C-alpha cells in the first residue's frame, strides 16, 4: 500500500531524511517514532506529495508520488502538524470546500461531510468559525478533512498533539477503527501511543531508520537484558559479593542506602531468570528481603537505547537487520 525505497531529502546541504526504506501493508497502522527533527514530518511531506524527494522513490496506493502525483493524492488523506484551517470559514464550509478540491462527487458531498463530522465528534460545532476553535477542535477538524474523500492511505502527523487526555483516548480509538479499512501512518514522539495503536513501528533518528518492528518485539529485544531491583536488610553485612556469586548473575550494582537497608540492581546473563536464586540466597543468609522486582523495560528504553547510538557509525541497513524479528528471537 505504501512503499518507500531509499528515500532521501536534502534541504541545501542539510540531509533531513537519509536513505529511508519501509513499507506498510493494507489495513496496517504504522507508527513513525522519533525525536523532534528526526525527519518524520519531512518523510510524510514527501509521501503526501507536498515536496518531491531528492532521491529514492515513494509509492502510495500503487502510484509513485513523483510520477503520478494527482492519482496518489486522490488516495491519500493528510493531517499536517498544524491543521490547515481557514480561520474565516465555518467548519461546515471548510469541509465542503475540502470535499470539492479532493474530488468528492457533488452528490456525495453533503453526506461525506456529515459522516466525517460525526466520526470526529464535531457535528455540534459545524457553524463555528475555524479561527475561533480550541487546539483540540482544530486538530479534529484537521482529521475530519483528511478522512473526507475516504482515502486508502491516511498520513497523520502527530494526530494527538494538543489534545486533552479524554480526546487523546477518543482519537486513538478512532485511528484503531480506521486501521482495518485504511492504511495509516502516524508520527508521534509519545511512546505509549505507539504501543497502544500501532501494529508496527518505524523508529527514525537523524534521518535514518533505526529499527522497524512490532512494539512487542522491540520491547522483547531489550527485555532479556532487563535488570532486577532488590532491596535487602543486610543487618550490616556486605550483600554485594553474595548476590554476585549467584549462578547466572553477571553484574551487581549497589544503588543506594548506607544503613542496614541496601538496594541493588542486578543484571542477569542473557536468557536467565535469576529471581528465585536471588531470593533463596538472601533468605539463606538470614537477611530480610524487602523488595524484589524485575525492572520494567518500556518502549521508552528501547527508544532511548536505539536513538542514543550514533547511527552514522553503522550503515542503516544493519540497524534494520538487527531489528528484524528473526534476529531478535534467535
Amino acid at each position, binding site marked *: 500500500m505504501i512503499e518507500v525505497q531509499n528515500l532521501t531529502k536534502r534541504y541545501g546541504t542539510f540531509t533531513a531524511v537519509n536513505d529511508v526504506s519501509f513499507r506498510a501493508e493494507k489495513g496496517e497502522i504504522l507508527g513513525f517514532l522519533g525525536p523532534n527533527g528526526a525527519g518524520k514530518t519531512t518523510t510524510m511531506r514527501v509521501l503526501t*506529495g*507536498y515536496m*518531491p524527494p531528492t532521491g529514492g522513490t515513494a509509492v502510495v496506493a500503487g502510484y509513485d508520488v513523483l510520477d503520478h502525483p494527482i492519482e496518489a*493524492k486522490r488516495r491519500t488523506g493528510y493531517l499536517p502538524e498544524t491543521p490547515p484551517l*481557514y480561520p474565516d*470559514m465555518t467548519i461546515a464550509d471548510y469541509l465542503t470546500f*475540502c470535499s470539492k*478540491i*479532493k474530488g468528492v462527487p457533488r452528490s456525495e458531498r453533503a453526506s461525506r461531510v456529515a459522516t466525517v463530522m460525526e466520526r470526529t465528534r464535531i457535528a455540534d460545532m459545524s457553524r463555528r468559525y475555524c479561527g475561533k476553535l480550541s487546539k483540540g477542535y482544530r486538530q479534529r477538524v484537521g482529521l475530519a478533512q483528511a478522512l473526507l474523500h475516504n482515502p486508502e492511505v491516511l498520513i497523520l502527523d502527530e494526530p494527538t498533539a494538543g489534545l486533552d487526555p479524554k480526546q487523546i483516548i477518543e482519537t486513538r480509538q478512532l485511528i484503531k477503527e480506521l486501521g482495518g479499512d485504511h492504511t495509516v501512518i502516524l508520527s508521534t514522539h509519545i511512546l505509549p501511543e505507539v504501543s497502544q495503536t500501532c501494529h508496527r513501528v518505524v523508529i527514525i533518528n537523524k534521518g535514518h531508520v533505526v529499527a522497524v518492528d512490532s512494539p512487542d518485539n522491540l520491547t522483547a529485544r531489550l527485555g532479556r537484558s532487563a535488570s532486577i531491583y532488590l532491596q535487602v536488610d543486610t543487618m550490616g553485612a556486605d550483600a554485594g559479593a553474595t548476590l554476585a556469586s549467584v549462578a547466572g548473575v553477571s553484574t551487581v550494582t549497589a544503588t543506594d542506602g548506607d544503613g542496614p537497608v541496601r538496594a541493588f540492581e542486578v543484571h542477569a546473563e542473557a536468557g536467565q531468570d535469576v529471581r528465585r536464586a536471588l531470593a533463596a540466597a538472601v533468605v539463606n543468609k538470614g537477611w530480610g528481603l524487602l523488595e524484589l522486582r524485575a525492572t520494567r523495560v518500556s518502549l521508552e528504553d528501547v527508544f532511548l537505547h536505539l536513538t542514543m547510538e550514533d547511527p552514522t557509525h553503522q550503515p542503516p541497513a544493519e540497524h534494520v537487520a538487527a531489528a528484524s524479528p528473526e534476529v531478535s528471537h534467535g
Partner: protein
Amino acid sequence: MGNIVTIAQKELRSYFASPAAYVLIGFFAIIYGYFFGTFLYVFNQQSQQFAAVGAGQVPINVNQSLIQPLFMNVSVILLLALPLITMRTYAEEKRSGTMELLLTAPLTDIQIVVGKFLGAMGLIAVMLLVTVPHIGMLFWLGDPEWKPIATTYLGFFLMSGCFVAVGLFISSLTSNQVIAGFVTFAVFLMLWIISWPGSFMGPNGQALFEYLSLPGHFEDFARGVIDTKHLVYFLSVIAFGLFLTVRSVDSERWRG
C-alpha cells in the same frame, strides 16, 4: 475547470469574509466619487465656455473630455489598492499552513494559481461595479457613446489583470505580507513611471521603455481603440506573471 472555480470562489469569499474587501471598495468609492465630481465640474466649465465662444473650436464630447481622463486617473487607485489585494494571496496561505492543504490535494499548481487569479479579478469586478451608476447617470443626462466606455472597462480590467498576475508572483515568493505588499507596490510604480526618462534613453531605449509602461497601453483603450498590440501586451504580461507564479510555487517545493 471545476477546481479552478472552487479555488476562485474560496478566494473571493475570503476577501468578503473579512472587512478588507468592504473597506477597500468603500474607500475606492469615495476617491472615485471625488474624481468623478471634479471632472464633471471641469467638463461643465469647458462646455459652457465652448457654448459661449461658439464654432471654430474642436467640439468636445463626454467620452473624450470626461470619461477618458476620469479612468486614466482612477487607474492610479489601482496602483495603490491592488498590492493590498494580492499581497495576502500566497503569503497568508504559507503563514497559516493552508498551503499544505492545497498542495496535497489532487489539484495542479496551474489550477491553484489561475483560481487565485480569477478570485482577485472577481473582487476587482465588484469594485468596478461602483463606477457603473455614475457612468449610467451620464447616459441619463447626456449622450455619451457606449463603445469607448466598453473598451475603457475592458482595458481597465486587463490592466488590473497584469497587476494581479505580477502581484501573485511576488506574493508567492514570501510568507511576509508586508514585504509582498510593498515590493508589489514598488514594481507597479516602476511599470507606471518607466517611460518617464523618455528621450534621455535614446530612440531605442525610449521605444522599449514606452512599450513596457502600463498606462501607455491603457490609453488607447480609454480612447475607444482596441489595438492588438496592447491586447497582446496585456495578455502576455498576465500569462507571464501566472507562469512565474506556477514556477515559483513549484521551485519552493523542491527547496523545501
